[in-house]
C-alpha cells in the first residue's frame, strides 16, 4: 500500500515536472522566497511542489518589471473583453469610482502588430489587472461604437483613462511606453 502510494506520488510529480518544463518559455532564474509562497498557494498539487519546488519564469518583457506566471497559473489578474459600448462604459465608470486606472487596448484581428503584442498585454493583465489597473481589450470590428466614441483611427491604440477622462493615448505596439505610462498614471 505504502509502495503504491509512493510510486503514485512519483508519477504525479513526474507529470507535474513535465508540465512545468513545458511551461518554461525562456530564461529561468532562481526563485525568490516570496514566489515560493505564492506558488504553494496557487498550485493545486501541493505534493509535487514540496518534492521538487518547481518554478518557471516566462519570457522577459522588454520593460521595467518582469512578469511571472507561476506554473502557468495567473496571479488573479483579469483582461476584460467587452463587446458593447455599454460594457465599456460600465467598466470605465466603476473603475472611476474605485479610483483605478483603466487601460484599453483597441485591437483588430487583421492588424499584425496587434497580434504580436496580444500575449504581452495579456500577461500584464494577468499580473496586475484589477488591483490598481483595469485592463480592457476592445476589437474595433466587434465593437465599432466604442472605437467611434474614442475616435480610434489606427491599431493598436492604447488609452489610459483616469476618472472617466482620457489621460494618455499611445499609438502603436510600444510596450515600454505603455508600461511607463501605466506606472505614471495608476
Amino acid at each position, binding site marked *: 500500500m505504502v509502495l503504491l502510494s509512493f510510486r503514485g506520488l512519483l508519477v504525479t510529480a513526474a507529470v507535474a515536472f513535465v508540465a512545468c518544463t513545458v511551461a518554461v518559455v525562456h530564461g529561468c532564474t532562481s526563485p525568490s522566497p516570496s514566489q515560493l509562497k505564492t506558488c504553494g498557494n496557487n498550485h493545486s498539487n501541493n505534493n509535487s511542489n514540496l518534492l521538487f519546488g518547481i518554478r518557471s519564469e516566462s519570457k522577459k518583457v522588454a520593460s521595467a518589471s518582469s512578469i511571472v506566471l507561476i506554473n502557468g497559473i495567473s496571479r488573479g489578474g483579469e483582461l476584460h473583453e467587452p463587446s458593447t459600448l455599454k460594457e465599456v462604459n460600465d467598466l470605465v465608470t466603476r473603475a472611476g469610482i474605485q479610483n483605478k486606472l483603466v487601460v484599453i487596448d483597441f485591437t*483588430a484581428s*487583421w*492588424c499584425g502588430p496587434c497580434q504580436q503584442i496580444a500575449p504581452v498585454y495579456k500577461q500584464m493583465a494577468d499580473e496586475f489587472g484589477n488591483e490598481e489597473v483595469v485592463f480592457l481589450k476592445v476589437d474595433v470590428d466587434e465593437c465599432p461604437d466604442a472605437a467611434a466614441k474614442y475616435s480610434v483611427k489606427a491599431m493598436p491604440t492604447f488609452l489610459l483613462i483616469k476618472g472617466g477622462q482620457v489621460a494618455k493615448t499611445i499609438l502603436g505596439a510600444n510596450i515600454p511606453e505603455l508600461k511607463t505610462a501605466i506606472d505614471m498614471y495608476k
Partner: protein
Amino acid sequence: MNPAKLESYKPEAVMVADGNKADHGYDYDLVVIGGGSGGMAAAKEAALLGAKVALCDFVKPSPEGTTWGLGGTCVNVGCIPKKLFHIGATLRESIQADANFFGISSVGVKPDEMGQPPTLKTDQNWMAVKDNIQNYIRSLNFKYRVGLREKSVQYLNKLASFKDNHTVELVDKKGQTSEITASRFLVATGGRPTPLDCEGGDLAISSDDVFFLDKDPGKTLCVGASYISLECAGFLAGMSKDVTVAVRSILLRGFDRECSERIGDYMKEHGVKFKTKVTPSKLERVENDRIKVTFSDGTDDVYDTVLGAVGRTADTIKLRLESVNVDTNPKNRKIKTINEQSSCPNIYAIGDVMDGCPELTPVAIQAGKALARRLYGGSKEPMDYINICTTVFTPIEYACIGLSEEDAIAKHGKDGIEVYHREFLPLEWSLSRHDSNAFAKILVDAKSSDEQVVGIHYVGPNAGEIMQGYGVSMKNGLTYRQLTDTVGIHPTSSEELVTLSITKSSGDDAAAGGC
C-alpha cells in the same frame, strides 16, 4: 478652331427641379444607398458642402455565403484584391522566368559550367497570399468607416429599399426594421455577378468568392471572356494553377480586337488553356468535392473550382424602384438617368447601377463628386464620360483610351483612319523572354487638319502607369504631331508611343528593329 476643342466643349448640366428646400423637415438632406466607390465619394463631398448625409451600405451574401465590409465592389471583390493577386502572380512568374538571367539564385547553389545559376524554383502558398490580402482589405474597410465618421456622414449598415420617394425602409443583419426620410436620394448600389444559368450552375463560384477562398482553388475553369474572367484566369495561372477559359465567342467584347487577340495569345503561350465556341451545359458534383463540367460541344472535364464570370447585373432588385417610378433599362436593370438624375426628380444614380456609365471606380467617384457639387455646391458642371483611360490587368496588361480600331473605322470610315503601330520587346524581357512582344498603336483621324488622335492602345508591362499621362493629353485634343514632337524617355516602353511612325496602310513590318 481646333475641332477637338469643340468636341470637348461641355454644355451645362440641365437638372430637373427636385423640390429640395432648406427647411424640408426630413431626417437628412441626402441618403446615399450603397457604400462603394461612387456612394462614398458623393456622400463625403456632399457632407463637406454642408449637407446632412446618411450612407446605407449592406452586403447581401453571395450564393456561396461570402460577405464583406464597407467599401463596395472595388475595395472588397474587385480592383484592389484583383490587382494584388495579379502583382503576386506576376512576381512569381518574373522570379521564375528572369531571376537566373540576372544572376540571382538560391543561397549556396552553384552555377553551371557556363556560369549560369539555375532557374529559381518557386512555390506560392494560396492561403498566405489570400490572408495577407484579406487583412489589408479589412484595414481599408476600417479606414473607410473612420473616413465617414470624420466627414460626419452617418453610416448605417442596413439594407435600404424605397417606401416612397422621401422614405426608405431599413433592415439590419438581425432583421430589425426602421425608417428614415430624406429630401434627396442617391442610388449607388453597383452590380453583382450574373450567375451561370446552366444545369448545376450553382456549383460555380464568382468573383465575389474567389478572393476569399479558404482552400487552394486548384484546377480551375473560368467561364467567360470578360476582363474579369481573363484577369482571374491570368493570376491563377501565374500562381501555377491549371487553368482553362471557356469562351462563347470573342475575347473582351467591346475592346479593340487586335489587342484582345494579343492578350489571348500571350495567355496561351503562358499555359492558360482556351476552349473556344463553347458554353458549359452542365455542372455536377463528383468525388473528392470536384466538379465535372459538360460543355456544349459534348466534351467534358473535371475541375476543383469553376468560376463563372459571364457578366454583371445591376443590383436594383431589392430597392423597390417601382414604388417610386424610377425607370430602368429592361435589358440590364440599370437606372436610366440624364445628368445622373432618374425619372423621379429627387432620386439620383451614379456608378455601375447607372445605365450608360462605364463600369470603372474612378468614373463613379468623379461622377459622385460632380453630382454632389451640383446639388449642394451651386455647380453646373456635368460629368464627362468621354476619353476615359482604362487598363485590363491580364498577365500581359492592356491599357487604352478613346476608340478601338473597329469603332474608329465605324465612325470615320476605313479611309478616315490612319493606324500607327509597333511591336517591340520591352527591355525588362530582353534577357530572358525573346518570344513575348509588347505592342503599341494609335489611331488618328486622317481627315482632320492636324491628325487628331482618336485612340491609343498599349499591350505590355506596366500598362496602367504608362497610359495615365496620355489620358490628360487626349482630353485636351492631342494630335499626332504633338505626340511625336514629344521627346521620349529612354529606355522605357512608353517612349514607343511617342515614336510611332510605321503605318498599317504602308504594309511595312511593324516588328521593332534595333535600338
